[in-house]
């Protein structure tokens, strides 16, 4: 048997009370609400729309003739050698670029962590490529790579090496890679340099007292402490490089013979040259999944590092 209750209409005061946070936790939620709402609007809504779009046959020129295809767009992409090739080229491009950026970036950071006269000037100079707009940088490199009038072939000519077709079928992949590495290594360097400065000097002093050589100090003291930072730089650079577009578009437009066709260009062509928004959405979801898989693998490594 339950006691009879009388219904009481909510008063204005009660409504207000509900709004006022009663504990610390609800205060936190209240304060987080605007940020979460913003994220929902600018992140989840477009993502959901894209997901929805990827299950439709939707051409911008015929917006009224849309048709639900389910996984049709995905099956088309995953059975089309041209798209798979683009995916493969993107992964290979990212692997080479990120590896080189990390190695060079770490080396530069170690170098610039040493105090020497003019250190700050050198740091600023090394950061320059990162500060230049991608289009401007790529256009400048297009001039440098020019077979007949470019700086690179002119310099090689001085040391007796004949001209090379930098953006031809043999070298275009490497040339675009060089531009990508050149432009984004400073970012890796900056992160690692910041990481290096957080390593307590006492540890290094102690290892020195214990008789560790320069290499041993790096290998057993500095590097283990740097790993989480390097992984962080890797996550960022991998995510950004997987969607590379500008240098490839400016330098080769995906050519010669689609040999530098990265997925970013594939998506752009599909969406804005063919207006096939359904297929483009599916391609971008596939790119997102690939990025997520790689990022999650990094995160797992990062967590293991943190635990050890």
């Amino acid at each position, binding site marked *: 048997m339950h006691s009879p209750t009388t219904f009481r209409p909510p008063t204005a005061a009660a409504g207000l009370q509900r709004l006022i946070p009663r504990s610390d936790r609800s205060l936190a939620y209240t304060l987080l609400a605007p940020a979460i709402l913003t994220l929902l609007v600018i992140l989840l809504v477009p993502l959901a729309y894209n997901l929805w779009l990827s299950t439709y046959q939707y051409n911008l020129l015929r917006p009224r003739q849309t048709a639900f295809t389910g996984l049709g767009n995905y099956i088309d992409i995953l059975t089309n050698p041209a798209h798979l090739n683009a995916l493969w080229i993107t992964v290979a491009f990212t692997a080479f670029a990120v590896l080189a950026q990390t190695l060079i970036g770490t080396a530069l950071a170690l170098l610039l962590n040493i105090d020497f006269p003019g250190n700050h000037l050198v740091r600023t100079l090394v950061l320059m490529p990162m500060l230049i707009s991608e289009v401007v940088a790529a256009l400048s490199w297009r001039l440098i790579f*020019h077979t007949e009038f470019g700086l690179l072939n002119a310099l090689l000519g001085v040391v007796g090496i004949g001209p090379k077709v930098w953006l031809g079928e043999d070298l275009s992949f490497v040339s675009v890679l060089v531009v990508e590495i050149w432009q984004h290594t400073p970012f890796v360097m900056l992160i690692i340099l910041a990481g290096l400065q957080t390593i307590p000097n006492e540890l290094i002093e102690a290892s020195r007292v214990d008789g560790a050589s320069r290499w041993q100090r790096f290998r057993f003291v500095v590097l283990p402490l740097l790993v989480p930072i390097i992984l962080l730089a890797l996550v960022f650079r991998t995510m950004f490089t997987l969607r590379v577009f500008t240098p490839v578009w400016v330098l080769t437009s995906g050519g010669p013979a689609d040999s530098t066709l990265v997925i970013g260009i594939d998506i752009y062509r599909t969406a804005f040259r063919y207006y096939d928004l359904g297929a483009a959405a599916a391609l971008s979801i596939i790119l997102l999944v690939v990025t997520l898989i790689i990022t999650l693998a990094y995160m797992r490594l990062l967590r293991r590092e943190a635990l050890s």
Partner: protein
Amino acid sequence: MFARALVAAAALLALTAGPLAAQTLNLLVSAGGSGRTFESSANQFREQTGINVRVIQYPYAEVREKQLLELVGQTGNIDIVSIDGSIWLPELTPFLKPLDDVNTSNLIPSMVDLFRSDGKLLALPVRIAGWVLIYRKDLLDQAGLTPPKTWAEFRAAATTLTKDGVYGFVPALKQGNYLVVQWIPFLFGHGGAILTPDKKHAAFNTPAGLKATEYFVGLVKDGLVPPGAKAYEQSDIITAMSQGIGAMAITYSPYYLNMNSAKESKVAGKLDIAPFLPYDPDAGLKTGRTLISGWGFGVADSSRHPDEAKQFIQFIAGDSEQKRIAVDNNNAPTSAAVYRDPDYLKAFPAAASVLTALESAEDRPLIENWTEVEDILARELSAAISGLKTPQQALSDAEKAVNAAL
């Protein structure tokens, strides 16, 4: 207190300025030469009529994309629609107001026809040119050659002139639009076609198409073009010719003015234009067949100022403005009278040759998914030029892909 009053006044001014300001027409155009030309016309138009035309410049690809998005969304933000010949017309047709009541008798008929769809006139041509053969007169004279009339003569001249750091022929072969439009005059000039007349199937994988493609690839393979041409865009043709490393180029006629300008070129005054592109006599042709393309302006269906937009288009396609921008801005005129105008002939002595070359003009097929066809052709031609595929293999693969796309 004073600052607050100032802010309030500024806000009030900003709010009222909109409706009070003179009406403004919006037009998106491709940045660069076209952008500068149309900007100067907009200034001229404002001086004469008091109507503002805001000329917004973007790179070519972005103009296409942004303009179409505005038109599909019926935003009314675009009043004047810029159309790159037959490439953009099919996709823009549903968003244009017909201009059938406009008098076009001053304009070159083949150029006006570029902007007709199902018999309706949708835009006026304002900047159109064709692909012409530009050659170094001094080098040909020295070698005792006349401008080549047939493809056989063209190859012979290219072979003779390739020496001492000069290449016989300078093409743009970077994968993309450049490569395809470079190849088309070779295809047409061998009697080939891109699509069947019903536009439902590829028509380039024929004996004529193969002959043209093998000839085209042969020029590259045999070293008659600069090695870097595989990465050239149209602008690189201008550079190579201006720097004196090229003897002949088949390119957009207005580039002649850049190559021949004393300010920009090392070979100014040494260039000329052939009246026709080379042809293949075995294909039963009497002249080469060029490609025309360029810009036309139409009125957006969703425009809030259609009458003013139409007025601007008629202004810029009129004889006097066509002459002014041809002389001042190197614009490729669409009015026939300009080609006979003494002032224009002084700036562009080869204009008469251009006019004859344009008479045999033809354009790309009017299909909605031309860009897809173009990308397929670009990829396969790029493979043929790089030696990754034989011309036959490239054409067969392209045919399969194009038929699937159509």
